[in-house]
């Protein structure tokens, strides 16, 4: 895989120029001491020495574009040849080592001068469908661990010179590259500066991936809700970029993050856009319903069976009481037990290879479900309630959100077990207060609802027909509101 470097690097602070007492080559070797994977190659007849990491570069290209061509150049003309644009003259040792670490090949001439040339091209995974965010009819390519492949996936889709990329380096040790993508003219400069400021302020040793990185720059570190939309899908990225939002990539992470994000973004899947608008709207409404179910269903069961037995309709009552009759625990303990079991099952399934994962399904579904009821450890109504809440939580297109909701659910169950419906409403109120006061780079997290933007709210909760998307959403504060030129069906 070849890396084509077209991205302009962000200016780095000029390093103080070192007076070099010994040659660059010697000092580079000294710095890279004990790096067994460092490769040294010499072209003695041309008085040239090469230093590079074999696994970081594309060896074929090295052979083809450097060694083969240098062979043709006469020894006298080597220095002239190395003035070629392909080579960059390097004067300090730090700079040199830095370049080598980034996958450059360093070329040293006898007299102590040095050049570097970009040969970056390590092995990468090929582009494959995302496993965490699957779609049925939508695009199937997803980001991979290579930053530049990811940028390419975006640029392929947005053929505009207005797509800008900023690069930053974060991580004392890992020195990971962070790329911010935005569309010039749509993005709000203040927001961009805020995000840039936050990224520049990060002080950390290593950056592992995007979901980890966004936790370093979010506004509310104590909240359990994900505050940046993280996605592996280029189609989600471009649709957000076109709303004036900013997309971020972390080197070696297949996940990009999007900012500013609002709560409702987590409910959207690209499939909604591929579907007919009525179907898409119905799906989105269903997800919102699933959101409420996953939060409150088990809790409501607990509230009703503990405090408000009068709320159960007659037809349900007797069978519920009968199955509860053998259970030795209070509904609260029973529900917590079952919820923990489901969480264990899910976590086990997530950590195990797919083949063994199926076994987990059988053990969990049949053994625990069936046997626990028969043994009289839990009531079968609860099993249904817990299962429905669990399934509803898996409906969320965002794994991050669904994990957060599953945790929040425990709080709801506890409150319901202590204070019944009053506790449940108390929990919902708390959740609403929390959600409405969250923010993402100081834009409100609960946006189209708080503050209210009726048009945005409609398009967040429903999948409106495309002619309704005549204006960009307010989340990214874009000044360029016009989305489609006409509001009629001219786009067809």
């Amino acid at each position, binding site marked *: 895989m070849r890396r084509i470097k077209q991205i302009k690097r962000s200016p780095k602070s000029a390093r103080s120029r070192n007076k070099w007492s010994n040659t660059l080559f010697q000092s580079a070797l000294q710095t890279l001491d004990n790096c067994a994977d460092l490769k040294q190659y010499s072209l003695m007849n041309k008085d040239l020495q090469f230093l590079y990491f074999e696994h970081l570069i594309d060896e074929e290209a090295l052979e083809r574009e450097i060694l083969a061509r240098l062979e043709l150049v006469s020894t006298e003309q080597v220095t002239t040849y190395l003035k070629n644009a392909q080579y960059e003259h390097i004067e300090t040792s730090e700079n040199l080592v830095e370049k080598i670490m980034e996958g450059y090949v360093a070329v040293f001439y006898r007299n102590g001068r040095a050049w570097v040339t970009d040969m970056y091209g390590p092995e990468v995974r090929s582009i494959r469908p995302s496993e965490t965010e699957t779609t049925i009819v939508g695009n199937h390519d997803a980001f991979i661990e290579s930053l530049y492949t990811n940028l390419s996936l975006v640029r392929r889709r947005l053929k505009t010179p207005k797509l800008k990329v900023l690069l930053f380096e974060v991580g004392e040790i890992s020195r990971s590259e962070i790329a911010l993508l935005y569309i010039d003219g749509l993005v709000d400069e203040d927001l961009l500066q805020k995000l840039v400021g936050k990224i520049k302020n990060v002080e950390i040793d290593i950056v592992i991936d995007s979901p980890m990185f966004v936790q370093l720059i979010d506004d509310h570190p*104590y*909240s*359990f809700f994900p505050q940046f939309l993280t996605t592996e899908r280029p189609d989600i990225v471009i649709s957000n970029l076109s709303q004036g939002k900013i997309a971020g990539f972390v080197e070696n992470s297949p996940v990009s993050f999007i900012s500013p994000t609002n709560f409702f973004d987590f409910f959207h899947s690209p499939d909604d856009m591929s579907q007919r608008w009525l179907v898409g709207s119905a799906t989105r409404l269903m997800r919102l319903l699933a959101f409420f179910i996953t939060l409150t269903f088990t809790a409501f069961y607990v509230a*009703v*069976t*503990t*405090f*408000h*037995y*009068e709320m*159960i309709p*007659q037809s349900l*009552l*007797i069978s*519920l*009481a*009968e199955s*509860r*009759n*053998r*259970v030795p625990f*209070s*509904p609260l303990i029973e529900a917590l037990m079952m919820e923990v079991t489901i969480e264990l099952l899910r976590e086990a399934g997530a950590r195990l290879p797919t083949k063994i994962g199926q076994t987990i399904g059988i053990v969990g579904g049949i053994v625990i479900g069936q046997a626990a009821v028969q043994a009289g450890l839990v009531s079968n109504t609860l099993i249904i309630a817990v299962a429905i809440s669990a399934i509803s939580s898996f409906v969320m297109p965002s794994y991050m959100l669904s994990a957060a909701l599953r945790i929040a659910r425990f*709080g709801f169950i*506890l*409150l319901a077990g*202590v*204070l019944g419906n009053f*506790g449940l409403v*108390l929990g919902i109120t*708390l959740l609403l207060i*929390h959600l409405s006061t969250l923010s993402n780079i100081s834009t409100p997290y609960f946006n189209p609802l708080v503050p209210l933007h009726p048009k945005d709210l409609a398009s967040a909760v429903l999948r409106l027909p495309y002619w309704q998307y005549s204006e960009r959403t307010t989340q990214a504060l874009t000044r360029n509101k016009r989305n489609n030129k006409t509001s009629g069906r001219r786009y067809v």
Partner: protein
Amino acid sequence: MRKYLSFLIMGLMMGCSDQHIVEDVGFVQVLGLDQMKEEEEDKFLVSAIVPQIEPDAENEREFLTTVSDSDKEAMLSLSRQSNREIENGQLRNVLFGKEAAENGIAEQIKTMNRDPIFGTRVKVSIVNGQAYKLLSEPYTQHPQVSVYLDALIEKESKLHMTPETRLHQFTRDLFEDGIDPIAPIIKMGDDKIALDGIALFNDDKYVDKIDPVDARIFFFLHGSFSAGSVHLTLEEKEKKESAQLLFDSIRNKRKVVVTANGPNDDMKIDVEIHIKGALLEYNGPLDITKNKDLKTLEKQLAKSVEKRAKEVIETLQAKQVDSLGLGKKVRNSISYKEWSGLDWQEVYPNIDIQPHVKAEINDIGVYS
């Protein structure tokens, strides 16, 4: 986050003493109240049916009785007989014995309204006999008596054979001047329960009932609805014989016109009834496939209904019960001064109330 956590912890610190865990509660589904005899006249015989939730139990219900003069005391006494706490939150039916109903049930109704646990959807019914006896019967065909009884009354009131009298309706009509409450009345049959018509109340006291055969006519007069069927016997004057007729899928519209000009004795009430339905059975002499005969039949039908309606009204007037709510109509058509000067209870029996029936046969079925 800390503040949320502290909130949660604070919430959990307290154990709650107001828990009613569903299996620890013996939820009464039917409550029967009977007046005690002679020496204990102010006391009630309370019988309660609580569904059994132990899967191995032979009986599907727990039947509990006690003698008490207050509702709460009765509950405590019932609880002592059960392994569960006896509660009223799931009560569906309350049955009053006829004797208790004759003595007035306002106290009980008010008590039930005061306690929020009862809700307002409890069905109030009268037992023609003793509620205790009706409830103590095992009913081999319907082991779950409470469900059986509830479904029976529910179905009949949907068909407008008996009123839908819940605690709410009963209380509402009890407090209203211009209407007297009504309730379903049931009786015990042979291993079964059967509807026995409509119980008529004067204030909170049971006075009489309307037989199931007249129930439909009563409901024609009572209000607009659409359901059910009526079986009529038309008497053919010329031939001195009767024809049977079944009128089905009835839609009924009622309009009450009050003419009151001047003094009270001039007041006249016209109840206009417009019924529409399908003729499903007819064995009279008329050829119902012919338009003309159908019109004649409509007239005969109307006349027959009118006659029986008149009878029902006369019964009601004789018993001095305004179960049809005509008082409300009168009140709304006269001024406040006139109404407050009027003793409706006194005036009602002597008012000229005329039913006017218009019948319309929509179709005669799918086969002629």
